[in-house]
């Protein structure tokens, strides 16, 4: 029965990604249409709702062709190498509060026999939780770099290189921004982090800088605009997936949007209290907490889309500068400030929130100060 529950959860994760990606694609087109003062898809089905279905059929019906000069094995392996990590990263996400043993599903799986406290709606409640996510995400870079290399095309090669350099540059800041949360929570397990937030308040209130950094670096890690240099059609045509067609291309799409959904889910779990909602979660059944979680994730995904349709794109050197010279020191500074605040709190029992807020304000002040100084230096240089 336990095996059945596990299998069901694993299938759920895969199904969730397979289901949310078409919704996201439709949502993206609808949101962009709304932002850009136009309709978006509105022909297939009521209000264009069946558009993803039409897209899917089109992808399936397209010929999958590989140019003659490609390395065929790697060319076809690359999309899979990107998709598998995207599907696997959801394993540590707690989707809702534990499903009670006396609920319908609990009865169905006769949960009181093996898990009387309820079935955790989380596939793997592992000790290294967050690190697992980072490790899995870092593997996604192979799909990109190999797609670029195997296609034997200069545009794809450039796209693959850009993507990999970008992903590794932002991975550090991503890890360090998570670290601030880990310092507060004292655990790597995502479900415990969520539970702590139910008591102590969401970590975004303590760690706005870390949250902002995490969100920005997550954008960069998922190759989303304004960090979509790896595939920007105006320069590199399609970047690393230029030579792909039909379902192989759709696989890249699936992976990209899946990554986007999963990083939003992690963001919500780490900073926005996961499935909690200011104590309300105690009173409502588990499936409503699931809806709360999904609602938060969708809100976040909307921000992803909003950003994409608002900002221009960075240039490569600017992207690297942002990653190495701004995000990295800021993330490191945040870790130190947070550690200091916690030390103050634990050793002299200083109230946590004010200390933390002071630290965050100091960081923001430092950022503002450096940018002002930089701007002044730039102005002086241009005058000279």
């Amino acid at each position: 029965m336990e095996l059945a529950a596990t299998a069901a959860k694993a299938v759920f994760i895969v199904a969730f990604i397979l289901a949310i990606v078409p919704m996201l694609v439709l949502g993206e087109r609808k949101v962009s249409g709304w932002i850009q003062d136009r309709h978006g898809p509105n022909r297939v089905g009521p209000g264009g709702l069946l558009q993803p279905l039409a897209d899917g059929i089109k992808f399936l019906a397209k010929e999958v062709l590989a140019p003659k000069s490609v390395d065929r094995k790697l060319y076809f392996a690359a999309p899979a190498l990107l998709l598998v990590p995207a599907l696997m990263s959801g394993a540590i996400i707690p989707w809702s509060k534990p499903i009670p043993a006396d609920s319908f599903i609990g009865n169905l799986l006769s949960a009181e026999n093996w898990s009387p406290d309820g079935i955790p709606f989380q596939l793997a409640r592992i000790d290294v939780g967050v690190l697992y996510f980072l490790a899995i995400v870092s593997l996604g870079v192979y799909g990109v770099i190999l797609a670029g290399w195997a296609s034997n095309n200069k545009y794809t090669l450039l796209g693959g290189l850009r993507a990999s350099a970008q992903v590794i540059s932002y991975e550090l800041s991503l890890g360090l921004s998570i670290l601030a949360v880990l310092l507060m929570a004292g655990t790597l397990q995502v479900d415990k982090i969520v539970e702590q937030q139910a008591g102590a308040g969401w970590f975004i209130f303590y760690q706005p800088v870390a949250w902002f950094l995490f969100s920005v670096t997550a954008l960069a890690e998922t190759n989303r605009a304004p960090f979509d240099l790896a595939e920007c059609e105006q320069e590199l045509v399609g970047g690393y997936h230029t030579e792909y067609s039909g379902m192989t291309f759709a696989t890249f799409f699936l992976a990209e949007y899946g990554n986007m959904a999963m990083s939003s889910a992690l963001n919500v779990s780490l900073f926005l209290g996961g499935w909690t909602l200011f104590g309300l979660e105690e009173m409502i059944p588990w499936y409503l907490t699931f809806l709360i979680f999904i609602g938060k994730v969708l809100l976040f995904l909307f921000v992803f889309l909003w950003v994409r349709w608002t900002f221009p794109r960075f240039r490569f050197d600017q992207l690297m500068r942002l990653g190495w010279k701004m995000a990295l020191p800021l993330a490191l500074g945040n870790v130190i400030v947070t550690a200091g605040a916690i030390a103050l709190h634990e050793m002299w029992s200083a109230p946590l929130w004010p200390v933390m807020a002071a630290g965050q304000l100091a960081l923001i002040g430092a950022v503002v100060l450096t940018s002002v100084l930089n701007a002044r230096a730039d102005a002086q240089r241009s005058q000279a």
Partner: protein
Amino acid sequence: MPAADTYFPILLLFVIAVVLAGVILLIARLITRFAIKPREGEAKYTVYESGVNPLGDARLRFSIKFYLVAMIFIIFDIEVVFFYPWAVVFRDMVKESPLILWEMLVFVAILALGYAYVWRKGGLDWD
């Protein structure tokens, strides 16, 4: 065995993911082979290069800069890996003694020294 606290579910998920990815690609290949009559043509099987004939191989030595980024990344990545266990026990251990804070500050200071050096030497500039 397959409890949520073990790693078995991840193996399960891995298997499902691999199978799914394989099936998607397989179906695509099968559809191409049996359901679609591909239109023939030489140009179709050449790689894209903005409408002119691609000459030469795209796999060539590229800028050493990418290499530098990767190396610096590895070093910082190893350093960051040490942070995680530190962060996890920090809150508990700092109650006993502030040693853990100083430990990490020294570690970070040395790291920051290297970082400043790399910055100074232009290792972080793309140009």
